[in-house]
């Protein structure tokens, strides 16, 4: 009985660990997005400061491609929006994962208690 419980406990523990990993992964992805967000903000500002006299290039692979200032501005703005959307999505995902992991934690703790009881009883018996 105690062993079965133990196995159960182990499996639950594994699942919980997996969840934690997922949570941390999404968190890091979100952080990356945040960095991109800041960067794009800076670019936007710079482009705004830029006069149309000087040309704007975009680096695509090893090539610097000429871009229109206006076009560049538009592109950057679009990218910003996209990043924001992604961040929100990730946040929602993160919340859900947190909830799930909480539930899992509770289950785990209850199982642990049971296991301890069982082992206690076993010890007593012995």
């Amino acid at each position, binding site marked *: 009985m105690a062993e079965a419980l133990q196995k159960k406990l182990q499996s639950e523990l594994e699942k919980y660990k997996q969840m934690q990993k997922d949570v941390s992964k999404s968190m890091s992805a979100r952080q990356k997005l945040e960095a991109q967000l800041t960067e794009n903000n800076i*670019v936007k500002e710079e482009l705004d*400061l*830029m006069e149309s006299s000087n*040309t704007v290039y975009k680096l695509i692979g090893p090539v610097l491609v000429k*871009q229109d200032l206006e076009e*560049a501005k538009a592109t*950057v703005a679009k990218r910003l929006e996209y990043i924001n959307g992604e961040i929100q999505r990730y946040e929602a995902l993160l919340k859900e994962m947190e909830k799930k992991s909480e539930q899992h934690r509770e289950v785990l703790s209850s199982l642990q208690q049971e296991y301890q009881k069982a082992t206690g009883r076993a010890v007593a018996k012995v």
Partner: protein
Amino acid sequence: IFHPQVVKGCDEQILHWKKVSGDYEALDDRLRTLPDHLSYDVMVPFGPLAFMPGKLVHTNEVTVLLGDNWFAKCSAKQAQKIVDHRVKYVKGELDDLLKTRKNFEARVGFTEDLKELSVGALGHIGSHLESSSVIMHRVYFLHIFKNLFSLFTGKQRVAHKPNSKPKLDTVLDLEEVEEEGKGVEADEEYCKILSEKELWARLDQLEKLEELQDEEDRLSDTGDTNGDDTTSSSSSEEEKEADCSQPEKEPGPKTSWATSSPANGQLVSQAAPGGDTTKDEDEQEEEEEDCLPTIYFSHTVEPKKVRICTGKNTTLKFSERKEHSLTHSKRKKKNNGTNGHSHHELHKITSPVDIYRLFVDVKNGEPVPRKSILKSRSRENSVCSDTSESSAADFDERRLVGRSVSHDDAPHSDTSDGHTEDDSPTALPRTPSRFEAFSGTVVEKDPMPTAVPHLTIAPPALPTILERKQEEGTTDAAPPVEPPKRVSKFKAGRQNR
């Protein structure tokens, strides 16, 4: 806890930003000098190992990386503008980091001092890293909140000096307001020092106050209680401090007294110490707050002797005083002019004495014990020395009638219960009508009316603290269990005498 780590992290980031700003400075210089010449003769790196002589032309054209793979061709001057922009940003980041670092540094130092102080302060009381750690934790929370707040507001706040003693929690609260004003304005460390000293001074003040109060209480007890008072008060104090980390109530008579007032040690200590009855914290606060200024013994009219339980006069007196304070506080609070209201006061039974009061007749300003009943039974005399010889029967009756609420205090109030019950039982047989009236007055006290029938079921139901009305549901089960103890005690007493 993790403050030092934060400080370290801040340091690293600060270093990074400093490097970046240095780079930008060099870049700025280069940009300034570059357009001076139309072309430069340079050695161009050719792979990782070779250089080639070459020329640097178009010295005014600079391709600037705007971020995220975006480039812009600009003149040197324009590039300079961009660089300036970036330098500003870097500076801003650096400043923020420095601020946070300062804050955390302060906190770290603070907690260190706190540790020392708490250990020192608690040392003479004989504690207990546990309590100090608990206190520190509490303080940490306080600090964290305050510091966060200060961060948001951009101002420095003085962290509160945690008071090692439980009563100081109240002091903390009181002083928070003070400190807030100070912290916002003054320099951090200076304020810290000030606040610390202030706090300690305040602490000393409060301690003295407490001692004075204790002495007053002791003196008021007079005679019998002196010894108990001192011991109980001192022990309660110690327990209070020792148990500051254990806010739960404990069944022990004195410990309960002490623990029941962890946060309000100040007030509690000032009230009648050493009571064997446990009081609800709130009630204690209420009582004591009111009691402090208005303790007067109207109970002297009542036959104290009746209360005396097996040789524990002190408890009687204590309880009496409590009753007084109870009634006083409650009167104040509840503007009781009617029996019902007064009964409300009586409602809060914290000691057997309270029960007695209930049976004694609604107190309209003063406890009007049914002296006639008592006297007729010559209770006073008999009860004086004995717990409840003849009152045993009455006691049982009383229980039947009066107990609706069983209480956890059973063990504590046993002795005191004896007295009150003595009185009440006597009252019952005398005036059954009164009893009804009694129950009527008890209307406010839900348990009472319902208790009557219950009591028939479980005779030895001792009234418990009113706050535990909720437990009445459970008390039905409890009374049968607890009363038996008391019954046996009483019976034993009876049998002995």
